[in-house]
């Protein structure tokens, strides 16, 4: 046998589950899953890895769209395969009967239970919607394709 340097896969999954708190400002008290939301942003916005929380600045606006976006369905908790922990929303993100006339190309997933803190930013080909539906179908929830992967 030999020892192998690694970050434990169980730790990665547990990070996604909120089990570890390595800082000194632990505020978490909930024992239930957080509520997540998904907000759309204009193609001219600057939403990226430096984004720390949801903001209405440069968020899309239009008929049928409520600032803050829509709830993310989270019926399947994080898991892992091999050394990769992963998680994906359990349903498509559907913005129904909206008119979004200004081009948008970004969705921010954020935690509305934890002060709207940002989780991830996903970009796609620029779109507009006219009195219709905008649907984001999630990728396969596995170690190679999941929306969020800690590899």
């Amino acid at each position: 046998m030999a020892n192998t340097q690694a970050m434990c896969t169980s730790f990665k999954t547990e990070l996604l589950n909120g089990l570890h708190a390595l800082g000194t400002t632990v505020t978490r008290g909930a024992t239930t899953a957080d509520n997540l939301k998904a907000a759309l942003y204009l193609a001219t916005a600057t939403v990226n890895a430096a984004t720390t929380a949801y903001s209405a600045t440069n968020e899309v606006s239009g008929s049928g769209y409520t600032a803050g976006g829509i709830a993310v369905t989270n019926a399947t908790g994080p898991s892992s395969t091999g050394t990769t922990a992963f998680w994906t929303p359990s349903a498509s993100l559907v913005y129904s009967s909206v008119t979004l006339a200004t081009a948008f190309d970004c969705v921010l997933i954020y935690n509305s239970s934890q002060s709207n803190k940002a989780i991830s930013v996903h970009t796609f080909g620029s779109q507009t919607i006219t009195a219709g539906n905008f649907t984001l179908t999630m990728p396969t929830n596995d170690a190679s394709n999941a929306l969020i992967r800690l590899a």
Partner: protein
Amino acid sequence: MAVIRTTRGDLDERDLSRTLGFEDRPEEFVVWVEWRTADGELVRRDAHLILKYPTLVADAIAGGM
């Protein structure tokens, strides 16, 4: 008769022209459909993005000593 919601209210789909398009990108597959009136006005546009392989991966690396 199929009635669809548009910017001009509910219209009979047979009175509209429909254009269906798709784009196959590395990370997503996009399907969109547009409905226009006889005078060319866009009265509805839907888009459906299928996320195939998001490249967003956080590498959790254990540092060496």
